[in-house]
């Protein structure tokens, strides 16, 4: 499904976060959004799944304008989504296993045994073993993130949103998660929108890259296009240099 943001504006208490932002996310591809910390990437992602509504402008998922739907329709559309939150947002009153099983129990009629198999498989994919009975509070930050990832993938969604899937992981685990995202996308042909700080992994997994700066997408295209961009902001961001505005 195609994702389209048209002239999206969003401010919080006078602070402009998204400023007339336009972005079309190609279906069945991995699109990575890069941009500086506090630049509004998470806010952008939450617009795509209707958690935040734009002050003006619209967000389309396929042919549906998600920013204008009522709750009931919104719920229907969200069944196509899986989302990994930046801080994982695991249900802390449930075990790891129940967290991953939760969306499956809610929206399918699989038996208990079948669900157990899926949960185990998803946990294996994110490199976790023997944690099913643990509570989220007993896990490290990186482990929580991976459980969140497993939960987001539990229903093999058509659209997957990842808010910094590899932040806080060691290099080897980063690589494994990058591979998992690519593999999952290939398997399910999902539309993936990934937020990342990590330039290396961005170029490893992305079909398309979009750079968010000052509330707008200032550069969009293939990884090569971004790599050789003439835009000084993009250049500096990729080179990892801090830029002064003057």
């Amino acid at each position, binding site marked *: 499904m195609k994702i389209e943001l048209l002239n999206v504006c969003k401010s919080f208490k006078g602070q402009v976060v998204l400023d007339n932002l336009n972005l079309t996310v190609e279906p069945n591809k991995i699109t990575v959004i890069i941009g500086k910390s506090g630049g509004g990437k998470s806010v952008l992602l*939450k617009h795509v*799944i*209707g*958690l935040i509504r734009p002050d003006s402008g619209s967000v389309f998922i396929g042919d549906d304008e998600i920013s204008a739907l009522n*709750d009931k329709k919104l*719920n*229907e559309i*969200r*069944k196509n*989504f*899986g*989302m990994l*939150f930046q*801080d994982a*947002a*695991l*249900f*802390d*009153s449930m075990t790891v296993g129940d967290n991953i099983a*939760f*969306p499956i129990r*809610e*929206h399918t009629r699989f038996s208990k045994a079948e669900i157990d198999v899926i949960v185990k498989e998803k946990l294996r994919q994110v490199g976790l073993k023997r944690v099913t009975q643990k509570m989220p509070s007993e896990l490290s930050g990186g482990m929580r993130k991976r459980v969140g990832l497993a939960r987001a993938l539990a229903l093999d969604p058509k659209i997957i949103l990842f808010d910094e899937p590899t932040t806080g992981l060691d290099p080897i685990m980063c690589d494994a998660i990058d591979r998992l995202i690519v593999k999952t996308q290939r398997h399910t042909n999902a539309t993936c929108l990934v937020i990342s700080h990590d330039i290396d992994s961005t170029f490893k997994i992305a079909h398309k890259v979009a750079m968010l700066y000052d509330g707008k997408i200032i550069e969009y295209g293939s990884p090569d296009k971004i790599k050789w961009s003439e835009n000084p902001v993009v250049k500096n961001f990729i080179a990892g240099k801090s830029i002064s505005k003057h």
Partner: protein
Amino acid sequence: MLRFFEYVGKPFVLLIEAFGKVILLLVSTISWMVRPPYRIHEIFKQMEFVGVNSLPVVIITGAFTGMVLAIQTYYGFKMFGGESLVGATVALSMTRELGPAITALMVTGRVGSAMAAEIGTMRVTEQIDALYTMSVNPVQYLIMPRVIASIMMLPVLTIVSDFIGIVGGYFVGVRLLNINSGIFVARIIEFVALSDIVNGLIKSAVFGLILSLVGCYKGFGTFGGAAGVGRATTQSVVISSVSILISDYFLTAVMF
């Protein structure tokens, strides 16, 4: 002068606004009750938390309330030779007033605050957003079971409190103050009508609605991290307690 009205009027407007929002939440909760899935499992979990786990505190407070009532009325009634009415007074006070009120206030402190804190924490850690992204409505999943469980369990706890309070009164009156046991019980049966008990239970169901709705409302509207959760929790206890006592007056005035 305008300043003055603004100063006095603003809290009032905020109060009305909050009241309206609570009513809206109630309407939404009721509308989710009649739509599947019915969350039976969640409701039972909450009934255990609200009901079973509150038993110890309800038993202790009920017993001591009955006991102190017995002592107080004994010293008062002895002045005109009315000791035989101690049992009936304790029983009427417990069933009509103190059973429902003390139970509701204790459960507010134990359960209402926990609801606000738990839902508030889920709000600030994006767990409620996560529910939305999984197409699960948090009003149905989190709030509806808590409200139903509270409405059902408060009357049960109140019956326990009534009974234990009367037993406590009996213990003090008959064992410690040497009132004749037969008369103590006979007067209770003579004076306490079924309607006294039932009306007390109806009140307690309303209190259950108030404390769960306020706790959930405050938790659901939490913002601002751990400090916000603390604020929501405190406010929920204060608002619930005050609302319970105020509504108690009006319910009593209407029913008895």
